[in-house]
């Protein structure tokens, strides 16, 4: 019973509930929201954010951050275009791009975990660096002539129905990340690192190595997202995905992951991603400008941390008052 109450009080449960409620409301109240094609668009729109949010969840749970993801996406997209222009086969380019993403992540990992630099500062630096390199690679050109077999697959759906092919990729990866985070020794160690990295070290967790690999994975997924982005828009450009990093961080925080680490769940984050995408989609269908959504996002983000704080604050002060109320022994 008290366990149930504990779960109910935690923010990620709340956000899942809110998401479901908004989904129901939008399906019922917004014309064209519930139809299959719109579902396809919804998934295609949230795909890159959802993908990158998977490793980002882990990184934030360990108390770090990676702001370079969108630039990694842009750089892999640019490299993809360049390699394609050079005549490599797409079957080679795709794994190569994921690998390059991993490499870019490894650079972050070394800077942060070997040299012990703060991740916020490092990844702001590599955010600029990778985006710059993307411009160096592809300049102002755009590469667009990717084969239809691939671009069509990315934008296509399973059997022409409402379920986009890429949802398979997302579901498979989400399940893998979910299991790793919530049901493996590695996942356990991530929470321990985030909540108290010293204690984790004393328990035999190799903190630096663990975090290093998280950045590698984050880079690889950003690379994959870069490939999918490029294929979806049939356009490899240096500015692909610019600004996406903050949307991802916002979704992760909205999903109930503590920015100080140690707390959060992948399901919460995925519903955070979904919530933002649904709101955006539904509001656009209602001809509400995308700008109003900026306000909604911002307010939701702050509320997601503020509300639990207020609740615990009120509870504590009530508790203290009760203690005071006990008559004090006089000497």
């Amino acid at each position, binding site marked *: 019973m008290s366990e149930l109450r504990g779960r109910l009080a935690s923010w990620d449960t709340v956000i899942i509930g809110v998401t479901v409620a908004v989904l129901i409301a939008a399906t019922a109240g917004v*014309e*064209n*929201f519930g*139809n299959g*094609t*719109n579902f396809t*668009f919804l998934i295609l*729109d949230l795909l890159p954010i959802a993908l990158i949010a998977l490793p980002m969840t882990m990184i934030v749970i360990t108390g770090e951050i990676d702001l370079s993801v969108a630039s990694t996406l842009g750089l892999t997209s640019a490299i993809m275009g360049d390699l*394609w*222009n050079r*005549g*490599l*086969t*797409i*079957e*080679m380019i795709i794994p190569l791009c994921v690998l390059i993403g991993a490499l870019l992540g490894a650079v972050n990992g070394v800077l942060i975990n070997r040299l012990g630099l703060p991740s916020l500062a490092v990844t702001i630096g590599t955010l600029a660096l990778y985006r710059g390199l993307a411009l160096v690679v592809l*300049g*102002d*050109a*755009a590469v*667009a*002539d990717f*084969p*239809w*077999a*691939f*671009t*069509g697959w990315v*934008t296509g759906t399973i059997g022409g129905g409402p379920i986009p092919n890429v949802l398979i990729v997302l579901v498979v990866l989400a399940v893998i990340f979910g299991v790793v985070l919530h049901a493996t020794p590695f996942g356990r160690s991530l929470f321990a690192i985030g909540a108290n990295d010293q204690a984790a070290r004393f328990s035999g967790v190799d903190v630096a190595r663990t975090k290093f690999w998280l950045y590698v994975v984050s880079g690889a997924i950003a690379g994959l997202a870069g490939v999918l*982005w490029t294929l*979806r*828009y*049939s*356009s490899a*450009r240096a*500015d*692909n*995905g*610019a600004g996406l990093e903050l949307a991802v961080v916002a979704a992760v925080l909205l999903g109930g992951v503590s920015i100080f680490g140690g707390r959060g769940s992948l399901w919460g984050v995925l519903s955070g991603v979904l919530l933002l995408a649904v709101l*955006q*989609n539904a509001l*656009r*269908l209602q*001809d509400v400008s*995308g*700008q109003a959504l900026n306000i909604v996002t911002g307010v939701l983000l702050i509320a997601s941390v503020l509300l639990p704080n207020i609740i615990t604050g009120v509870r504590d002060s009530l508790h203290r008052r009760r203690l005071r109320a006990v008559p004090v022994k006089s000497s």
Partner: protein
Amino acid sequence: GGTSKGDDDGAAGPASTASADPNAAIKEGLKIAFLPKQLNNPYSDVLAGGGEVAVGELKGEYKLVGPNDAAASSQVSYINTLIQQQQDVIGIAANDPNAVCPSLQQARQAGIKIVSFDSDASKDCRDVFINQATTQGIGESLAKMANELAGGEGEIAILSATPNATNQNAWIKVVEEELKKPENSKLKLVKTVYGNDEDQKSFQEAQGLLQSYPNLKVIVSPTTVGIAAAARYVSSSNYKGKVAITGLGLPNQMREYVKDGTVSKFALWVPSDIGYLAAYAGAALASGQITGAQGEKFTAGKLGEYTIAADGEIVLGPPTEFTAQNIDQFDF
């Protein structure tokens, strides 16, 4: 094995098979939506304004949507929304000819007519393209103005919009061709820079040009944002009077610089007419009057009759040149 560049995998795009009925009546209540490159751009505003007037005349439903940034991918979500809303016509100025293509294809499969204007999408994903002037015409006009302002010889530079802007790139190509002609042989194009159609970036790019090329005589900016920013910089710097600015600009934005002598000549078509023509072309498509094939004709309200040229192109007409003498006659 594997798929590499140049392999033709038979790109699938639905080909239009419908035939036109030139006598079909224009339907009333058509839902016509405009999707410019980005919303907060005065040029886009004026342009869509013309569309609104036309949609009013056609007794249709007008809608204006669009992103706040001119990134390649940000128009896609809006196209998808318009498909959901079952619009009849989408008028679009594409930020990237290819990025919007798959979505436009989907729109066409859903029976929506696509009219691209101002900046074309790939040929096979729209029905017609409203070209403000022929690419050749604009390019020649830009080169001519540059030549006049430079006095026949010297260094010139180009300040463009985004590096991927279809129309700007096409014009620049024509300018480059023009410069090879004997009458322009003493002109030297030293650099092309991109202000991304952002005021601040264009401003700073203009600065950079003047610093790097002290002997620069003319900056040609084939974009309204760029020319205004460059003119503003020059008018406030000590380059004023030494460097001429020309290109494509909005009279209202440029009036001040024409009057203070920074700019003596620039050109533009009447942007509201593009929107106006786009709306009529869309309505004609949606009503079955035309299909976008070469040679088809339709009437666009006050603008009169137009004929579709090759590749579904519809040319608005020649650009107007603005000078201190005539600028006060225009208000847009």
